[in-house]
């Protein structure tokens, strides 16, 4: 949908992995002989985002979506793999992040003007800075005079707008949006989604968008990556994934989403809970819940392969 | 029924005091309190009587064979509490035990060259040199039963590094009027009357229960509430309360202890000054005359003190009342003296006092600070816990300090002047660090120690006392009073040396 799709990707993530050590303290391990335990929060994730487009990560709680965002933001170091953020010119790409929790994402003791000013270029003068803050607030639909207020004087939606203003203040080209609307009411969610879309069109921003809500993803995204227990199980253009899902997990997701349009579907929700990431199932981690599971699924981990439908799928049961 | 009657008739004296008996071993410690209390269990060859005169105890009589040779005739028919007879062997054993290296009594017995047994009840003592105070010293040296000591493995005084003689902490066998019945250190010690005591029993006490109570207020409260019959040292401030309580009384007596300020008179400079004003007798006298000793007596001691001018209580032999005249309290004279000495504007004076060693020591020192301020001397008072004070003072760390001296257990001026008047050299003048120094005094002191002739001794002691007074070697304050609080059922004697000689006590 954007004119510049042929460009080099702005963000490229290759075989990204992050393992967290969640072992008991050293002495305790020593005493009990307990082994070290670790969680593979992100395991071999690869994708790329072209400038001016949106890439969405979807998946259920704990599947590693936020960790990917934090790795990209540089808040965590990858255990393996690399994050490449580069423009053609080789210049550094400025990135910012918008978080899920509207309460925690702004320092409650700072006036919001201060918060917005924090990532601004240091060299800016006081007056210039104020002017810019005012402009940014207007851009996200607030008033310049709001700069002197404290976060608690704003509603959740307004606070997300302020976070977006802060991201824009850094003149970021890449925004990492970690469930920016899941804590909001639908009417307010619509406002924020519209704003995000407007900004992308106006400023040519690139988004890494994280959500567990497929409808929201559909509204905003160009490409989608579906994650399950730290791994990307399906990846491809939004339309293809949503309309013709290949991976059984993607299908399950789509099936269980309650839908206004087609209520009272006779859904057969899958039994079982998401396994603990501490000891994930062997082979394909989805096999215990998978209707298509075969013997090979228990032993071998499927690689992401291009499927006939046009997306990349990691499933033994899908032939290409 | 018989039990009830005897219980009703049995006289129990419940006694409390701030300290604790450190051990039942009379050769292991030399502090006055312990010696005072276990002096009811053990006896020496001689003892002090009610009037603080030496009288025969385990020795019936003695004579000098020469200047350095004494013969003692031991009392016959005396039994230890365990029934063993008392003989010359016990005396020799006790001499060897108390005089052994490491024993606190080694110094006391140092003048003795040896003891020879003549027969079971006669011994000869050879001195290294002429020594005037042998009997005084013997009153504080108690005799133990050789056989018993050997049976419990306590042939040597308690030794902390090897813990030999540990058995003596809770038990002891002597010849005295009371026996140790039971003892829990820090909690309770019970003595019972020795029915087989050799002496005529004047007392009617059957049992003494001793409890240490360190906190002054609690101790007085225990007396007032009737839980104890007798406390030594009712603090002056509580005297009126005790006297005002029906059934209670206070028995007063002057104590041998004199309180004074000692001074650094040797250093060239005092801390914080570029001179040593205290080296100047005029300054010492100025300080002396700035102190309102009668004010202290009235307000702080509540009349339980006697201002004194010489460091010797009237109760001691060789006391010379004509010398005991203070320089008057006179602020103007004091200022004039300071001006004369070149300190018209006063000076700052570091001052160090023990907290809790003497009666109301803290208050007296504070009051002194105020009094000195009136003549321009800014005293900077530091209070020290006694343990630290007693370590730092002999080490010469203080410039102006409070101290008290009684002359115990010798009860003679020699003890006082050798420790606090003599220029510090070796064992002499140990408690006079950097202090008073006078060649004539130093010359007289050893002579006083060896002179048998009482007239000559009196002359020499008076001379030393006068010199020291006139040169203001110390700033004398007062003689403390003993204020013993007790139920009026108790009839006690209050000797100036503060010893509790229970064999003179009776109870209604």
């Amino acid at each position, binding site marked *: 949908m954007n004119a510049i799709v042929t460009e080099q990707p702005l963000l490229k993530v290759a075989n990204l992995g992050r393992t967290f050590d969640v072992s008991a*303290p050293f002495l305790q391990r020593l005493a009990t002989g307990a082994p070290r335990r670790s969680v593979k929060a992100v395991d071999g994730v690869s994708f790329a985002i072209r400038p001016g487009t949106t890439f969405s990560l979807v998946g259920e709680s704990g599947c590693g979506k936020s960790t990917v965002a*934090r790795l990209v*933001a540089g*808040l965590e170091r990858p255990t393996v793999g690399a994050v490449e953020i580069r423009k053609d010119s080789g210049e550094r790409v400025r*990135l*910012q*992040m918008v*978080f*899920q*929790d509207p309460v*925690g*994402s*702004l*320092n409650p*003791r*700072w006036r919001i003007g201060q*918060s917005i000013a*924090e*990532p601004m270029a240091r060299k800016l003068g006081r007056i210039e800075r104020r002017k810019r803050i005012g402009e940014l607030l207007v851009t996200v639909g607030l008033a310049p005079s709001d700069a002197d207020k404290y976060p608690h004087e704003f509603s959740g939606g307004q606070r997300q707008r302020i*976070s977006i203003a*802060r991201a824009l203040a*850094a003149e970021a080209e890449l925004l990492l949006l970690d469930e920016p609307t899941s804590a909001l009411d639908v009417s307010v969610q619509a406002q924020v989604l519209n704003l995000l879309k407007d900004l992308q069109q106006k400023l040519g921003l690139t988004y890494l968008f994280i959500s567990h809500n497929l409808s929201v993803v559909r509204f905003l995204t160009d490409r989608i990556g579906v994650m399950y227990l730290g791994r990307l199980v399906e990846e491809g253009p939004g339309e293809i994934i949503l309309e013709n899902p290949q991976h059984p997990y993607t299908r399950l997701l789509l099936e269980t989403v309650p839908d206004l349009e087609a209520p009272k579907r006779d859904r057969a929700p899958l039994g079982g809970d998401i396994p603990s990431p501490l000891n994930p199932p062997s082979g394909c981690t989805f096999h215990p819940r998978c209707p298509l599971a075969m013997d090979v699924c228990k032993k071998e981990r499927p690689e992401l392969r291009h499927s006939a439908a046009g997306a990349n799928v990691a499933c033994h049961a899908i032939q290409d | 029924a018989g039990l009830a009657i005897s219980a009703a008739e049995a006289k129990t004296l419940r006694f409390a005091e701030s300290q604790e008996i450190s051990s039942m071993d009379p050769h292991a410690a030399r502090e006055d309190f312990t010696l005072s209390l276990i002096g009811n269990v053990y006896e020496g060859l001689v003892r002090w009587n009610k009037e603080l005169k030496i009288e025969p105890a385990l020795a019936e009589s003695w004579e000098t064979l020469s200047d350095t040779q004494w013969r003692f005739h031991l009392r016959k028919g005396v039994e230890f509490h365990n029934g063993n007879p008392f003989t010359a062997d016990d005396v020799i054993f006790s001499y060897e035990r108390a005089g052994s290296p490491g024993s606190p009594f080694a110094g006391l017995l140092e003048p003795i060259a040896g003891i020879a047994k003549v027969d079971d009840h006669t011994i000869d003592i050879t001195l290294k040199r002429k020594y005037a105070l042998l009997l005084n010293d013997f009153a504080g040296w108690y005799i133990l039963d050789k056989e018993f000591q050997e049976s419990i493995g306590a042939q040597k005084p308690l030794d902390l590094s090897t813990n030999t003689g540990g058995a003596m902490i809770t038990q002891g066998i002597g010849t005295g009027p009371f026996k140790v019945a039971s003892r829990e250190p820090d909690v309770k010690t019970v003595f019972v009357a020795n029915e087989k005591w050799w002496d005529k029993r004047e007392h009617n006490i059957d049992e003494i229960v001793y409890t240490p109570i360190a906190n*002054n*207020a609690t101790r*007085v409260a225990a007396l*007032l509430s009737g839980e104890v019959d007798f406390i030594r040292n009712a*603090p002056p*401030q*509580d005297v*009126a*309360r005790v006297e005002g309580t029906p059934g209670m009384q206070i028995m007063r007596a002057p104590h041998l202890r004199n309180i004074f300020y000692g001074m650094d008179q040797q250093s060239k400079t005092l*801390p*914080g000054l570029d001179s040593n004003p205290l080296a100047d007798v005029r300054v010492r006298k100025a300080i002396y005359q700035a102190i*309102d000793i009668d*004010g*202290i007596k*009235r*307000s*702080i001691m509540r009349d339980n003190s006697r201002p004194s001018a010489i460091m010797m209580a009237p109760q001691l032999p060789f006391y010379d009342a004509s010398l005991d005249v203070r320089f008057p309290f006179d602020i103007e004279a004091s200022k004039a003296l300071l001006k004369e000495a070149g300190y018209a504007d006063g000076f700052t004076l*570091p001052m*160090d006092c023990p*907290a809790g060693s003497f009666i109301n020591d*803290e*208050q007296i020192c*504070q*009051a002194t*600070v*105020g*009094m*000195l*301020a*009136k003549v321009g001397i800014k005293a*900077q*008072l*530091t*209070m020290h*816990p006694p343990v*630290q004070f007693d370590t*730092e003072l002999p080490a010469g760390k*203080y410039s102006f300090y409070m101290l008290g001296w009684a002359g115990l257990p010798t009860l003679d001026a020699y003890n006082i002047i050798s420790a606090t008047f003599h220029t510090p050299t070796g064992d002499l003048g140990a408690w006079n660090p950097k202090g008073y120094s006078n060649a004539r005094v130093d010359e007289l002191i050893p002579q006083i120690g060896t002179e048998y002739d009482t007239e000559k001794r009196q002359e020499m002691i008076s001379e030393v006392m006068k010199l020291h007074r006139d040169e203001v070697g110390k700033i004398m304050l007062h003689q403390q009073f003993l204020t013993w609080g007790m139920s009026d059922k108790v009839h006690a004697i209050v000797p100036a040396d503060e010893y509790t000689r229970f064999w003179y006590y009776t109870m209604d």
Partner: protein
Amino acid sequence: MSQLVLRLKAFGNSELAWRFRNSPPVIFAAVALIALVFCAAAASLIAPHNPFDPATLNIMDARLPPAWIDGGSSTYLLGTDEQGRDILSTIFYGMRVSILVGIAAVAFSMTIGVALGLIAGYLGGWVDTVIMRLGDIQLSFPTIMIAFFIDGVAKIVMPIGMREEMRFYVVILAIGVADWVQFARTVRAATMIERRKDYVAAARISEVGNVRILLAHILPNTIGPVLVLATLGLGVAILTEAILSFLGLGMPPSQPSLGTLIRAGNDLLLSGEWWISLFPGAALVLLVLAVNIVGDWLRDVLNPRLR
């Protein structure tokens, strides 16, 4: 200026102010506290006598009872002590020392505790382990034992002339050292929560340095419970000083605190001169009670979990 007025007004309308206006005991305690602190702070101006100018003391005036009792003198409203010092004035001066010791001790433990808590909470890992283990060990020794220890060391280390002057600092150290753990634990817990919050991540993405994040972002957000702790700690510190005084480890008679006064008076409890110990005792209890009531109220009001 008008900003200030506005903010004051806003404060006047705030929940806090409203709750305050509606709790008479707290108002009473706050007024008492202000009055006591004022008397203490202005002791040298308002006290009728200067009890610590030795030159003005007269031992003849010693042990006078309060003015309304026979033998009392109107110059000495609450009577005099054994040195002839005015009890009312010694209470003012003593309160000043008590409050100063209390505040300084709390400030000391707060500074150490907050700093260590921030570092432990933010850095985590072995730094955290070491600091918190240290805290555990520290907690194995009750305040009094620590005070004994510090006191003992100070007595030996310091030259004789300085001991008395330095006492103030030694007492502060003795009380202060014992209390840092509480602050550290509180701040550490708060820091661990705050550092995971998204605004910290946002700051890190914006390449704000660690020190600035700690001081400008995290510290202000942990300070609420710290202040409550500090207020309550003040009461405890003043009491601890009194207890140390009772055991002979507190302030010396030359700079007496309320505790020192009570200890001196304690010996006179049975003597009939009750005013010498009772009035300082009452002042101490009143002071600590007022501090505690205010602190307690602050904790209830500021505790988000109780809303």
